[in-house]
C-alpha cells in the first residue's frame, strides 16, 4: 500500500505524480531545513538527508556512524561503508571517535533514525518482536547506533512507513528511548536534547504534544485523511485540531530525489 500509492497528475506545474514513499522522503528532507549537522542513519534517513543537502539545506553537514564528517555524495550511498562517503568528507575518523568525540559530546543538531516499531512516546524497538505464545521471538537487526543517537543529539527526527505493525500500542522491547513514559522522563534518565520532535511517515507527520509528549498527528500529506492515519496506527492516535496539509513535492524536489536514486542504482 505504501510504495505504490501515487497522487493524481498535478496541475499548475506540479509533477505528474509521486509515490507515498517520495512524499515521505521529501517531507523528511524538509524537516532538516535550518539544521547545521545531522547524524544520519542508513536507509530512509540517508535518502532524506542527502535530498535535503541538494534542496532545503545545501550547507547541511552529514555525519555517518562509519566515521565520515561532512560527506557530500553526489549519489545515494549504497551502504554506510560506501567509499563515496569517505572520499567526499571533510574528515574521516574512527568509529569509536565518531561515537565518543562527535555524537556523545552533544555537538550534533539532529539525529535521523528509522525504526521497526514506534510507540506513542516515540520510543523505538529494533531488537525483537513478540509473535505470540506459540512462536519464538522474531529477530530484528538490533540497536546499531540508535540508543546513543537519540540520547545525545539536539533533537531527533524519525522516518518510517505507517502501519499498525510499526506504530504499536506497546513496544515488545525498548531499544531506544524517545520520550520514555512521558514528560520529564528524558531529564530523569539523563538524556540530552529535545528527543524526537517529528515522526515523518508516508501518510503524514506526528509531533509530540508539548504538554504530554504523546505523538499527535499534526500534518497530513496531500490526499490523506486523518482517519486513514488513525487506522494505520496501533493506538488511539490524537489528531491536532486543524492538521495542516503538507505541500506537495515540488518539481525540483522530485527531480532531485529521482536523480539521486538513479545515480545510486546505476553505480551499483
Amino acid at each position, binding site marked *: 500500500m505504501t510504495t505504490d500509492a501515487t497522487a493524481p497528475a498535478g496541475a499548475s506545474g506540479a509533477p505528474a505524480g509521486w509515490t507515498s514513499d517520495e512524499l515521505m522522503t521529501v517531507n523528511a528532507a524538509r524537516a532538516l531545513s535550518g539544521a547545521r549537522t545531522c547524524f544520519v542513519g*542508513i*536507509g530512509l534517513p540517508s535518502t532524506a538527508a542527502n535530498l535535503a543537502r541538494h534542496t532545503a539545506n545545501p550547507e547541511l553537514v552529514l555525519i555517518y*556512524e*562509519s*566515521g*565520515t564528517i561532512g560527506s557530500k555524495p553526489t549519489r545515494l550511498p*549504497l*551502504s*554506510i*561503508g*560506501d*567509499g563515496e*562517503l*569517505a572520499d567526499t568528507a571533510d574528515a*574521516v575518523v*574512527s*568509529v*569509536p571517535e565518531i*561515537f*565518543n568525540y562527535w*555524537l*556523545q559530546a552533544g555537538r550534533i543538531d539532529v539525529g535521523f533514525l528509522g525504526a521497526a516499531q514506534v510507540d506513542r512516546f516515540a520510543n523505538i524497538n529494533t*531488537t525483537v518482536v513478540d509473535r505470540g505464545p506459540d512462536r*519464538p*521471538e*522474531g*529477530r530484528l*537487526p*538490533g*540497536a*546499531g*547506533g*540508535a*540508543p*546513543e543517537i537519540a*540520547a*545525545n543529539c539536539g533533537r531527533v527526527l524519525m522516518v518510517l512507513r505507517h502501519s499498525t505493525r510499526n506504530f504499536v500500542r506497546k513496544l515488545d*522491547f*525498548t*531499544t*531506544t*528511548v524517545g520520550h*520514555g513514559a512521558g514528560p520529564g*522522563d528524558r531529564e530523569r*534518565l*539523563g*538524556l*540530552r536534547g529535545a528527543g524526537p520532535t517529528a515522526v515523518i511517515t508516508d501518510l503524514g507527520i506526528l509531533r509530540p504534544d508539548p504538554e504530554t509528549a504523546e505523538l499527535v498527528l499534526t500534518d497530513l500529506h496531500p490526499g490523506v485523511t486523518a482517519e486513514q492515519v488513525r487506522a494505520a496506527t496501533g493506538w488511539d492516535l490524537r489528531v491536532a485540531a486543524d492538521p495542516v496539509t503538507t505541500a506537495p513535492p515540488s518539481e525540483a524536489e522530485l527531480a532531485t530525489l529521482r536523480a539521486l536514486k538513479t545515480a545510486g542504482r546505476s553505480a*551499483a
Partner: protein
Amino acid sequence: MAEIRTLRDAVAELIHDGDTVAMEGFTHLIPFAAAHEVIRQGITDLTLVRMTPDVVYDQLIGAGLVKKLVFSWGGNPGVGSLHRFRDAVENGWPRPLELDEHSHAGMANRYVAGASGLPFAVLRGYRGSDLATRTDTVSTVTCPFTGEELAAVRALNPDVTVIHAQQADREGNVQLWGLTGVQKEAALAAKRVLVTVEEIVDVLEPRPRGIVLPGWVVTAVAHVPGGAHPSYAAGYSVRDNDAYAAWDPVSRDRDAFLAWLKDNVHDGSEPR
C-alpha cells in the same frame, strides 16, 4: 615482526575451536576470505564478535560453527535480514545461538577498553533501554567528581582479531585507509592478530586517512587479493552489491544455503 603466511596456515595456527574471534571492518574491508577459510577448516564452537555481523557472519553461523554472537546490528546492509542469523536465533538451526547484544557506541567502547588494557569503558549510553536487561556486560559507574551515573561496558579482548587491509610490507607492518572503522581497536584488543592484505609492498608510504599497525602487534599477515570481496577495499575494489542482493534468497532457504556453502566455499576456488 609479523610472519607472512598462507591464509590456510595462518588460520590453522591462529584460530582454534572455542576461540573468541573478532572479524572487523565497518562495511568496508570485511575479511570474507579468512572467514571462508575458517569454514573450510571447520573451526567450531566460536564466540564471534563484530559490530555489524553482515553477510560474513551469516555464513559462519549457517555453517554451524558459532555458539555465541557479540554484536550491535545484524542485517544485510541495503538488502534486509540476515536469515541464517535469524534461523539460528529463532529456531536454533543448525544450533542455538547465544547473544550478547549492545549498541554500536557500547561495542566500540568495549573494543577501546580492550585496546587500552582497561577492564571497562564509560559512556553516556543504554539509558532507559532494555538492552541492559539481556546482558551482563553492561553496568553503571558513578562519577567521583559530579555524582553522575554513567554506563559501564566490559572490555572486549578477543583471542583473535582478523582484519583485511590494503597493504603490508615484508616486515608485516600493515596499512589500511579510507573508512578504518574500529579495526585498530579490535586488533590491539586481541591476543593474536591475523591480517589479510590486497598487496605486499616493499615500502609502506603513509596515506591520507591511513592507519598503520606495526608488525610487532600483528601475529600473521596473509596475501589475499580480493580477500574482502564482496565488500569494499578502497583503492582496490568497489562493493559487489549484486552479491549482497543475491545473498538474500540463498540465506532464506536452508538447502539453498548448504548448496551455496558447498559450491562456493568448500569446493570453490578462492585464494587460500
